[in-house]
C-alpha cells in the first residue's frame, strides 16, 4: 500500500513535469497576448510525429529526434505568430478563434497525412533503476530529469537575461514596455518560438511512454491550460508546483478512487483552488 502510494506519486510527478513543460510556454504566451494558446496542442502533435520520423524512419539517435521536435515546434510557433497573430494583436476573441482553428488544422493535417493509426517509438533508454525497493524505468526518470533541466534553463533565461527581462516587461504592460523601447514584435516572436519549442520537447519526451497519434495533444493541452490557471498567470514557479500537484492528484486519484475519472479530477482541483484563490496559487493580483 505505502509502496504503491510512493510509486504512484513519482509517476504523477513525471506526468506533472510534462504538463508543466507545456504550460510554461503557454503561460508566457498567455501573459503577453491575453489568449489561451490552443494551437500549442497542434504543435505538440506535429512535433511528436517529426520526432517519430527522425528516430524510427531515419533511424537516428533519440536525442536528435528530441532536437528535431524542439526545432519543429519553434518553427511552427514562430511562423504562426509572424503570419497570423501579429496582425490581430489586441483582438482577443479573434486571436482565440485563430488559435482554435490552428489546433483543428494541425490535428486534421496529421490525420490526413499520417492516418489516425497509433505509432510506437522504442524507449530512448531501456532498463530500470531500483530505489528503496521500488522499480522505476530509466525512461521515466530521463523524462523527469530532462524536463526539470529545461525548466531551470527557461527560468534562468526569463529572470537573468536581458531578453527575458523584456518578456517580463511586455507581460506586465505591453504599451509601457513599448514606451521604454522594447520591440514588441521581437518579444512576441521570441515567446511564441519558445512556447512552440517547449511543447515540441514535451511531446517528444513523452511519446515513447505512450504512442504517437493525431489526438494525442488533446489531454496534455487541457491539462496545461489547467496548470497555467492553477499556478497563476505570469508565475513561473507556480507552473512547476501546479504541474506537480495536478500530476500527483491524477495519479493517486486514478489508482485509489476511479481510473475512469482520472481526467476529471483536474476540474475539481481547478474549481476548489479558484474559489479559494481566484488568481491561482501564485498569480499576480
Amino acid at each position, binding site marked *: 500500500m505505502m509502496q504503491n502510494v510512493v510509486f504512484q506519486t513519482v509517476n504523477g510527478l513525471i506526468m506533472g513535469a510534462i504538463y508543466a513543460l507545456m504550460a510554461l510556454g503557454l503561460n508566457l504566451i498567455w501573459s503577453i497576448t491575453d489568449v489561451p494558446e490552443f494551437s500549442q496542442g497542434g504543435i505538440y502533435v506535429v512535433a511528436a510525429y517529426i520526432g517519430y520520423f527522425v528516430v524510427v524512419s531515419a533511424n537516428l539517435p533519440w536525442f536528435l529526434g528530441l532536437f528535431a521536435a524542439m526545432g519543429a515546434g519553434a518553427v511552427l510557433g514562430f511562423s504562426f505568430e509572424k503570419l497570423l497573430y501579429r496582425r490581430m494583436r489586441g483582438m482577443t476573441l479573434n486571436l482565440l478563434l*485563430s488559435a482554435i482553428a490552428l489546433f*483543428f488544422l494541425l490535428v*486534421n493535417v496529421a490525420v*490526413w497525412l499520417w492516418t489516425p493509426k497509433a505509432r510506437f517509438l522504442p524507449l530512448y533508454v531501456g532498463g530500470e533503476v531500483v530505489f528503496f525497493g521500488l522499480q522505476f524505468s530509466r525512461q521515466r526518470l530521463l523524462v523527469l530529469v530532462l524536463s526539470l533541466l529545461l525548466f531551470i534553463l527557461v527560468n534562468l533565461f526569463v529572470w537573468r537575461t536581458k531578453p527575458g527581462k523584456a518578456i517580463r516587461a511586455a507581460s506586465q504592460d505591453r504599451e509601457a514596455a513599448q514606451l521604454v523601447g522594447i520591440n514588441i514584435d521581437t518579444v512576441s516572436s521570441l515567446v511564441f518560438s519558445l512556447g512552440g519549442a517547449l511543447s515540441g520537447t514535451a511531446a517528444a519526451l513523452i511519446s515513447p511512454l505512450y504512442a504517437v497519434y493525431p489526438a494525442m495533444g488533446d489531454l496534455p493541452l*487541457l491539462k496545461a491550460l489547467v496548470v497555467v*490557471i492553477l499556478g497563476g498567470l505570469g508565475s513561473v514557479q507556480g507552473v512547476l508546483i501546479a504541474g506537480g500537484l495536478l500530476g500527483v492528484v491524477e495519479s493517486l486519484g486514478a489508482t485509489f478512487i476511479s481510473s475512469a*475519472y482520472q481526467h*476529471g479530477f483536474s476540474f475539481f482541483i481547478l474549481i476548489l483552488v479558484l474559489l479559494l484563490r*481566484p488568481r491561482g496559487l501564485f498569480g499576480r493580483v
Partner: protein
Amino acid sequence: MVTTLLSRQVSLRRILVLGAATVVALLFLSVPMGATDYVIYVMVLAFLFAALAASYDLLLGYTGQLSFAHGAFYGIGAYTSALITLRAGLPFWVAFPLTGVFVFVLAGGVGFPALKLRGAYFAVTTFFFAHFVYLVFLNSVALTGGPLGLSGIRPPEGFNLPILGVVDFGSLRIYYYLALAFLVAVVGFLYILVRSRLGRLFVAIREDEVLAESIGINTAAYKVLSFSISAGLAGMTGSLFAHFFRLLHPSTFTWMTSEMIVIMTLVGGTGTLFGPMLGAGIVTFILELMRFAPELRFIVWAVALLTILLFEPKGLAGIAVRLFGRLV
C-alpha cells in the same frame, strides 16, 4: 418636404424588409415539399445549431462572457429529456419544458461559483466543466449507457388536428416544422429579451463590468441569469435533438461541440442574434458539403476560418455591413 421624403424612404425600406422576410419565410416553409430527405435532415440539424448559436450569443455577444460549456448543456438537455421519457415514462411534451427548467437550475449552480472568475479564467473553467460532463456521459454506464449509447428514444407524441389530420413527429418532414417553430420561438424570445430592460443590463455588463457594478447593478446575479437562460435554451435544443436522432452517444457531446458553437457564433458576428444563426447554417452546410472528402473536411474549414479572421475580423455581419452599409 424633406421629412415626408425621408419618412417615405423609411417606409419603403420597411416594406422591402417585410417583403424579403415573407419570401424567406415562404421558402423555409415550402422546403419539405420539394427537397430530398437528406437535405431536410441537414436543415433540421442546421435549425438546432442555429438555436444553439443564437442562445449562446445572449451570453457571449450581449453579456460578454466567453464560455466553452454550451455544448455540455446541450448534451445534458439531450440526456435529461431522453431519460425522463425512457425511465419515468413521461411524454415528450412534459419532458421538454422540464428539461429546460432542469438545465436552467443546474447552470445556475455551476455559474454561481464559476462566474466569480473573470475573462479567460472563466472560459477555461467552463472548458473543463464541458470535459467533465463528457466523462460523466461516458462513464456512468447505468444511467447513460456509457460508450454503448442510449437508444430506444421515442419521437414526440403526435396529436390530431381538425383539418390536417394526425400530426406524426416520427416523420422527418413534420419534425422539420417542429424544429423551425422552435427556432423561431427561441429567436423571438431572445429578440424581445435583448431589447428589454434586462437585455440592456446584460449589455452594460459587457461594456464595462466595473462601471456597471459601480452604478448599482448586481453584476454577479445578472451574469448568472444570462448564463442560465442561455444554458436552459441549449438544454431544450438538446431535448429536440434527442427525440429527433433517437440515439445518444457521448461522442456527440465532446468539447469539440462547444468549440463549434463558439466558432459559429463568432463567424456570424456576435451581438447580432441573426449573424450567429447564419453562421450556424453556413458552417453546418459547409461541413455537410465536404462529406465527399472526409479527411479534408476540417482542413478546408480551418483554412477558410483563418482567412475570414484575417480579412474580415467582424465575421459575416461585418461583410453584410460592408455590402449594405448597415446590418438589416
